[in-house]
């Protein structure tokens, strides 16, 4: 090589080098190991988690939870695998219960305020920079004195308790207090139960199955399921348990895929899973059930029982809008199946003839002869610690309660776990009746409408911070007592040992106040605190046979109770109904009567994701509705054809008028609803209840009148309403694509 290395040589060499590098770089390499550059937190350990078993308090079903906590914070809720009710599963609301625990709108501590005064210091405004909840303005000592005085200074019959359906231990405590001191027995209410028409179900069970209570429908074991309005995959009775049943209906190793038919005037998300959706005319459920019963009896060649003898299928077909062929085809499906099951529920019971519907549908089960058999109808096992099913108040009982309030019979009203101003139809005038109660004390955790209308708010701890137990009313084959224990000691201020929400368990408040009140009150609740009361209630189970666990002494038993999240029996305790003469009775197949003058049937239904108290949890707000995928708002479902005739388009705000009230709501053109029916979900329309709920959507309860059915439940679906288009439009946030799902913007030629 020459010692002169010219620039030209250099360039040549450099060129060759580059080309070589590029070419070799292009050759695919066999061994490519690709790993992320960074170690993300997903790969790291941040310490150990602890898990606590407790019970979900989002609804009264009583699903067992196991909550993952870390450094004193609840991180995630999971189902308790051992709990026979939910077997490790949760619904969306159970998952989002953490958004209740850490909700920024929780009441900060005991507060005395003027009725109607907001529990915010700043108005709820999406553009506001910072919110400030009302600060606590009294100490717990003063609060206890207020409660004690209220108990002591009033006559027992002037003291009333209005309670929600969770949790049961507090109800037991107040019941004990009432029994011992003569104050009014606590009244329990929940909008969920109102929409479930529990009194009707219970009454029908008493009439036909021989025992009041919630019947247990073994969906999982059935082969054909006819559901008359029962939205058991949404909020009905025990949705997690019934969803498991539904999965069993569809997928089972031991039997063929079961068939599911839903009779409902609008396609609920339950009906969306049905193989056949029968959009019958509202009010004809009873006659349709009876007609099917008659056709089935005829197909089987049985003598026609009294229950079906008056019904004329052809007539039913005309009235219900179901073709006779369809009725016959359904009857054949029902008759030919070895495990046919019929379930009454939902809006079908919330009509003037609701009881007849429930009876007619239960009678259908008698035709199928499935009482007490797998895939049939059972009596729900009576929960531990209880001798019979305790039904929450029906609408009739609430009417009486409200009347007593209005009459000034109560001087003090304690409210816990229920938001009657929101949950009860406005036509009941609960808020007005409240004016005749001298003192209203709310134990609300959140600043709901009731807390706003109370004189005092003494916030209860959130379900995940609480002790207690919940009796499983239905859904499990065994008697189950789901236990609650605090999974976190509280929510703290950042970098502080001070509580952010200075809440106190209502049971503790009542016990302490009773001690302060002294006398019979102190004697009625001779406990140091809530936990001692709880032990006194639970340890009696120690001696019961067939328990999931047993212990020699009370302390061990209590420890197991906490550890396992409750106590339950091991064997199936569902009762077989006494079936004699079920069909040998008259069941009215008359159409139900509708109140109001409009031309549209009105179906309010409980939002599957929000239910009655989910609206303040932002993640529940952001869950799309399973049928319409609408988030964060209320809509009215209307058939597209009808809307077209009325000149209504999507997102047009319509005014809906019933005999009881009116409201304005944007429209969703819903392809699966009868043209003569309007449906609105219940769950939004709060006037308080925190920044995520307030002033959002409308509450269909304001349209519902006070008409009852025979069992005393509200005929919430027994109304006709008028629709009027307004000039306003309100854009509904949907997850779905309007283009992709409804071809909007791409009209066919």
């Amino acid at each position, binding site marked *: 090589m020459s010692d002169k290395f010219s620039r030209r040589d250099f360039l040549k060499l450099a060129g060759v080098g580059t080309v070589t590098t590029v070419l070799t770089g292009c050759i695919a390499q066999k061994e490519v190991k690709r790993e992320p*550059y960074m170690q993300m937190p997903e790969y790291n350990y941040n310490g150990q988690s602890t898990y606590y078993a407790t019970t979900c308090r989002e609804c009264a079903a009583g699903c067992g939870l196991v909550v993952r906590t870390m450094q004193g914070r609840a991180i995630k809720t999971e189902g308790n695998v051992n709990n026979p009710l939910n077997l490790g599963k949760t619904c969306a609301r159970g998952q989002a219960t953490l958004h209740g625990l850490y909700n920024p709108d929780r009441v900060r501590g005991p507060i005395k305020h003027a009725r109607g005064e907001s529990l915010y210091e700043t108005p709820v405004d999406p553009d506001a920079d910072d919110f400030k909840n009302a600060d606590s303005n009294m100490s717990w000592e003063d609060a206890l004195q207020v409660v004690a005085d209220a108990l002591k200074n009033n006559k027992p019959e002037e003291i009333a308790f209005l309670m929600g359906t969770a949790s049961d231990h507090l109800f037991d405590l107040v019941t004990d207090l009432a029994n011992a001191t003569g104050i009014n027995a606590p009244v329990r209410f929940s909008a969920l139960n109102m929409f479930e028409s529990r009194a009707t179900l219970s009454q029908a069970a008493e009439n036909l199955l021989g025992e009041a209570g919630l019947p247990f429908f073994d969906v999982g074991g059935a082969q054909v399921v006819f559901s008359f309005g029962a939205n058991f995959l949404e909020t009905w009775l025990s949705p997690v348990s019934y969803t498991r049943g539904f999965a069993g209906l569809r997928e089972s190793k031991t039997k063929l895929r079961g068939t599911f038919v839903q009779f409902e005037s609008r396609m609920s998300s339950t009906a969306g899973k049905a193989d056949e959706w029968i959009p019958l005319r509202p009010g004809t459920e009873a006659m349709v059930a009876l007609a099917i019963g008659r056709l089935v009896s005829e197909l089987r060649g049985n003598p026609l029982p009294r229950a079906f003898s008056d019904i004329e299928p052809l007539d039913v077909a005309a009235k219900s809008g179901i073709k006779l062929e369809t009725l016959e085809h359904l009857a054949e499906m029902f008759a030919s199946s070895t495990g046919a099951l019929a379930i009454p529920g939902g809006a079908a019971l919330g009509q003037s003839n609701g009881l007849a519907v429930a009876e007619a549908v239960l009678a259908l089960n008698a035709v199928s002869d499935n009482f007490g058999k797998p895939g049939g109808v059972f009596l729900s096992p009576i929960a531990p610690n209880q001798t019979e099913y305790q039904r929450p108040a029906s609408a009739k009982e609430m009417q009486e309660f409200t009347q007593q309030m209005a009459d000034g019979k109560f001087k003090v009203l304690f409210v816990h776990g229920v938001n009657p101003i929101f949950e009860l139809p406005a036509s009941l005038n609960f808020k007005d009746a409240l004016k005749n109660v001298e003192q209203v004390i709310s134990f609300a955790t959140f600043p709901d409408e009731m807390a706003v209308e109370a004189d005092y708010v003494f916030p209860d701890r959130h379900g995940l911070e609480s002790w207690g137990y919940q009796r499983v009313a239905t859904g499990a084959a065994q008697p189950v007592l789901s236990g609650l224990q605090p999974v976190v000691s509280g929510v703290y201020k950042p970098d502080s040992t001070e509580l952010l929400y200075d809440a106190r368990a209502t049971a503790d408040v009542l016990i302490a106040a009773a001690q302060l009140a002294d006398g019979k009150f102190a004697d009625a609740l001779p406990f140091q605190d809530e936990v001692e009361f709880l032990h006194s209630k639970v340890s009696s189970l120690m001696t019961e046979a067939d328990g999931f666990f047993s212990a020699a002494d009370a302390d061990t038993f209590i420890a197991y109770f906490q550890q396992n999240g409750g106590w339950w029996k091991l064997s199936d305790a569902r009762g077989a109904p006494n079936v004699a003469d079920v069909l040998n009775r008259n069941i009215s197949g008359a159409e139900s009567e509708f109140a109001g003058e409009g031309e549209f049937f009105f179906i309010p239904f409980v939002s599957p994701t929000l239910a009655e108290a989910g609206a303040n949890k932002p993640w529940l707000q952001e869950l799309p509705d399973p049928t319409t995928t609408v988030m964060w708002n209320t809509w009215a479902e209307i058939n597209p054809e009808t809307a077209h005739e009325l000149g209504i388009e999507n997102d047009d705000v319509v005014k809906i008028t019933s005999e009881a009230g009116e409201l304005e709501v944007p429209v969703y053109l819903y392809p699966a609803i009868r043209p003569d029916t309007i449906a609105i979900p219940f769950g939004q329309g709060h006037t308080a209840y925190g920044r995520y709920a307030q002033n959002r959507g409308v509450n269909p309860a304001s349209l519902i009148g006070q008409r009852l059915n025979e069992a005393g439940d509200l005929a919430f679906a027994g109304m006709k309403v008028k629709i009027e288009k307004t000039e306003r439009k309100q854009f509904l946030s949907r*997850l779905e*694509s*309007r*283009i*992709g*799902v409804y071809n909007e*913007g*791409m009209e066919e030629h």
Partner: protein
Amino acid sequence: MASTAHPYSKPAKAHEGHHEEEQDMREFLMYDPKPRGEMNQMVMESMTTTSWKFWVVFGILCVLVATCFIYAWGYMIAEGLGVAGVMRPSYWGIFLVNTVFWIGISHAGTFISAILRVFKAEFRRPFTRAAELMTTFGLIQAGASIFMHLGRVWLFYWLLPVPNQRMLWPNFHSPLMWDLLAITTYVLGSTMYLFLPLIPDLAMARDRSTGWRKTFFKILALGWRGTEGEWRHLTTAMNFFAFAIIPVMFSVHTIVSWDFAMAMRPGWSSSVFGPYFVLGALHSGMGAVAIVLFIMRATMKHMDYFIRKEHFDGLGKLMLIVTFAYSYFFFNDYIVQWYGGDKWTDILLHWLEEGPMSWMFYQLILFNIVIPPLLLWNKKLRQTPWLLALIGLMINVGMYWERYLIIPVMLTINRMPFTWKLYEPRIELFLTIGTFSVFLLFYMAASRLIPLIPVWEVQEGQMTHSLRKVGKAEVPTVSEFE
């Protein structure tokens, strides 16, 4: 030349009876020379004569830049892209429309300047610089638009292959990476290519100005004295860049098109996207040059001397050719896709034809394909500056629609119908006004700071022109001297 009576006009050919075709050769810039000193003075005056109107427009643009560009962008960086209109499924929106648009605009400069220079097209001489400036400033806007589009623009350097201790390296498999490299190369190349022919003019300006301008030109002129050696080097360098920048120009827009064509999406995955985008870029670029020439001529002093009907005519012819070429690729793209009959493509085309943005689709066809040839075939119309500028504007609107259709509107349709949603621009509108303002502001500032007419090139042309006989016709041409 032939005629003694009219030294600068084509000789009359009475016997052929084509009197109407007789043309005064002095209409052509190359045959209408002025003394060098006078011409230099004219260019200097065009730079320094500024009316109050200029400052009004300049001031308005400054306000627009401050609000719609600097403030709006800062606000978007602080708040996140939520203030823009991008969402699922249109994850890309107007920012990338602007990017593609500005890159398209930038093509005109290179094309007119480099390709016409390489092919020795004489009518290019007075307006190469105006076009090159568009390239550089357009690319700056394109780059800014890309950065606006980034979710975390403060980490933009992660896209660059900067050696670092953690051995983090960008992904050269990604078309975005190619894009970044191509655009960077193009910016550097075109800036150099703008600067090189500017040097003699800067030196000319240096010698004719005083005060801060003199200092400014002195620095930029790099000590140019105009020696023969300097000229030789300059010519070599310019030739080198003129040839080198052409493939870069083609590759840049091809690579930009690959951002789309490489993706697995109906409507995008098309193999003609490369040339289609290049032609589209030229289409909009030519239009933009027409607009700029019109504005220059209308607003700047002495520009009617330098920019004449012949230039609009030549530009019009180019635009006509490009329109045809563009139309070819347009139909090639859509018809092939339509014929293919893929389910998702069918839906997409249906969406374009019938969806809420179909007006854009039809305007695009009208503005880009139908109207330009109908007007540009006519010499009279071609030579009407305002009309050509209007056509240019129309083409640019049409081309903007085309990019808008390709990015957010086509993104509406994907293989998951449950997610289809139509994009609505939000802060993008302000930022678009912002980029246009920055572009205009830069351009206006440049018109005061550097000679927009490459005066030495014009002089060189005028010195070397003659008439030559091609067949029976005599055409103006350049002597062998060049």
